[in-house]
């Protein structure tokens, strides 16, 4: 019997301490750095498993015109609002240039007209926000792989980093500026395009004019809007928060396939 009693005591003790954690400790546990590291292990597992179970070439589902969302919600920045950006809106982005540099053999610049002359891809895909909502839109743009091929990647190149015109937080070091990064598997995926058109019209300011990334198979925050420059790099740990993106530096997963 004494064994059972001690087990009971153990149970009551465990239940009481679990209850105490439940009442006061969850936030402390959440903020504990070691707990964070353990919880973050799941991201590597998720990415590894998805890379293993989903072919690098597997396409996100493409929908038809009748599936388009009647209203495509804009999220994050609606308008970068800076003087430089306002001036470009004013002149119809005729002075805007996309720069491709970093670990490439041939750094390049493209005007919007240049991009529109290149071979394009049109796809009707579903945009999944990390918050939980989805919207279906029709996107036309240049496959990123095509541009990277013409620029030519140097050995050791691993990531494409996108620098954007919008600044979500005003900071001195520029860490509030939007940026994103993807690996070369996603950069060369057939549906990864630099989109200048949405639902058959030029991209609106609220949706990232003049150019946004579409990296289907990832959540919305990877689809950088207002793209100004693409830098090819071997790492991103030396950029601002070191996590490869504006939201990644604020706790969101770099691998956003889930």
């Amino acid at each position: 019997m004494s064994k059972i009693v001690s087990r009971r005591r153990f149970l009551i003790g465990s239940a009481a301490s679990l209850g105490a954690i439940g009442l006061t400790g969850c936030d402390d546990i959440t903020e504990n750095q070691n707990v964070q590291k353990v919880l973050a292990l799941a991201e590597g597992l998720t990415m590894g498993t998805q890379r293993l179970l989903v072919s690098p070439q597997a396409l996100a589902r493409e929908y038809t015109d009748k599936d388009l969302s009647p209203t495509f919600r804009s999220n994050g920045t609606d308008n970068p609002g800076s003087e430089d950006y306002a001036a470009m809106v004013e002149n119809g982005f005729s002075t805007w240039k996309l720069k491709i540099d970093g670990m490439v053999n041939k750094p390049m610049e493209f005007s919007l007209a240049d991009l529109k002359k290149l071979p394009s891809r049109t796809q009707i895909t579903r945009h999944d926000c990390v918050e939980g909502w989805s919207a279906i839109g029709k996107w036309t743009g240049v496959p990123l792989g095509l541009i990277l091929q013409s620029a030519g990647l140097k050995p050791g190149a691993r990531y494409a980093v996108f620098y954007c015109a919008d600044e979500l937080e005003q900071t001195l070091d520029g860490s509030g500026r939007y940026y994103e990064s993807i690996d070369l598997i996603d950069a060369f995926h057939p549906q990864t395009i630099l989109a200048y058109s949405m639902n058959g019209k030029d991209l609106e300011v609220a949706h990232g004019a003049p150019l946004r990334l579409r990296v289907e198979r990832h959540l919305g925050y990877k689809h950088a809007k207002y793209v100004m420059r693409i830098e090819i790099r071997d790492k991103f740990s030396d950029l601002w928060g070191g996590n490869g993106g504006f939201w990644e530096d604020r706790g969101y997963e770099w691998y956003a396939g889930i």
Partner: protein
Amino acid sequence: MADIDATGAPPVHPRTMYIRRHSIVTRLTHWLNVLCLSLLLMSGMQIFNAHPALYWGQYGANADPSWLQISATDGDTQPYGTFRIGSLTIPTTGVLGASKEDGEWTVRAFPAWATIPSYQDLAAGRRWHFFFAWLFVFNGLIYLLYGFVAGHFRRDLAPSGAEVSPRNLWHEIVEHARLRFPKGEKAKRYNALQKLTYLIVIFILLPLMLATGLTMSPGIDAGYPFLLDIFGGRQTARGIHFITAWTIVLFVLVHVAMVILSGLWNNIRSMVTGRYAIRTEGEDA
């Protein structure tokens, strides 16, 4: 042992005998599941709070009609919360839509005491959710492997034809409603209601949570687009994920109530140590 009918037997004394009810695998996976499901529910509510509306179909966002929504309206001194399902709107101030966080009125779907972390932090909620989703998957795989290989499902959970006859099921429902639980020899095994309920949870509800969760992943959808066809779209899958989660909560509430009513300590001991006491009103040996 005078098990056979002994007529004219002396006064009957209740006896207690212990049987080994739950294997070590069942016990470990059960408690790990308690941990996983609790944290998955709390972090799931945190994630839901980021966009507290549900839609049917492939897409759904603010401008689209939702079938369920938790929202708040401004008042002079405090916000007022409402829960809407279809066209039915229920005031839920204090719990859903608007509730107090550190003494301050806050607009949030599920209240701070129910979510992890307590404050609004979608990124942290997702980290908790996916970590415990993985643990839940590993735990479930071990349990399923054990269940099939060691014969746990066949031996303990598969009901016989007689057990699932309408007559027997009705009899058990009536007995349960009267809170009369099996004793003696019958208490050694699960009754048909238990078997069916556990089978539904193990083979339908929990796998459905996983499958609808995976359908919300844009990466998995690319590799396995049939998931979108099975569930009728990502937003429908999100709704089924929500409904199934609360169905599991309902199961847990009934399960815990039954555990308490049919002998709290005996049940808990059997799920911790494996030993389960059977009381028989048998004769002395």
